[in-house]
């Protein structure tokens, strides 16, 4: 009897925690997109007004960022300084693939970020500015989608975790 109760508590708390982790991941995605937008804005300032070369600008930004974004910017900057890539787009895409894949960003977010890397540093300031604006719009769209998802599913994941745990416990007990 005692074992049964302990096992049931373990099952319920495990699946409840799983639900909480899922809903936390949703809110983490929103936070990461917002952060990314902020740092891209910093990058725009560096590029448009400071006219800093891209490796140095990326290094400055990586000093301010933290977590996955820090590693993302740092990897691009290092790749550019070491000259291990042919273009900025390659470095950007490779860094997005290896670093951002581990974060909570979704496939569509990463594809968007990769497509921005192809344009970065390929034209004059005015044109870059336009591309930055476009990228902000796209990121904003993604951000809204993430927010929508949070509203729709975060609460559901949390309660569903506990409830499914309870269901498993009742069926097995």
């Amino acid at each position, binding site marked *: 009897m005692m074992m049964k109760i302990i096992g049931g508590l373990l099952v319920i708390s495990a699946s409840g925690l799983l639900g909480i982790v899922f809903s936390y991941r949703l809110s983490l995605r929103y936070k990461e997109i917002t952060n990314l937008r902020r740092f891209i804005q910093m990058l725009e300032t560096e590029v448009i007004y400071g006219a800093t070369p891209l490796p140095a600008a990326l290094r400055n930004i990586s000093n301010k960022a933290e977590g996955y974004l820090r590693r993302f910017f740092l990897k691009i900057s290092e790749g550019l300084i070491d000259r291990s890539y042919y273009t900025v787009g390659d470095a950007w895409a490779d860094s997005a693939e290896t670093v951002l894949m581990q974060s909570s960003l979704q496939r569509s977010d990463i594809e968007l970020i990769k497509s921005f890397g192809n344009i970065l540093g390929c034209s004059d300031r005015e044109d870059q500015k336009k591309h930055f604006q476009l990228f902000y719009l796209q990121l904003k769209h993604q951000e809204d989608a993430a927010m929508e998802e949070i509203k*729709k*599913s975060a*609460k*559901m994941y949390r*309660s*569903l975790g506990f*409830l*499914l745990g*309870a*269901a498993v416990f*009742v*069926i097995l*007990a």
Partner: protein
Amino acid sequence: MDVNLIFRIAAIGIVITVINKVLYQSGREEMAMMTTLAGVVVVLMMVISLVSNLFDSVRTMFHL
């Protein structure tokens, strides 16, 4: 035949109802439908041996 089974079925009913409500509220009607169906199937699995017992005893009682 034990009373435990009845309580268990009742508990499954309650949990499935709440899951159904939660899913319905977050706009996943088809998933709510699926959980309800899953609950029905699970309970049916529990009860099916008892039902067959009942049929057997009816058959033996009336020598069919």
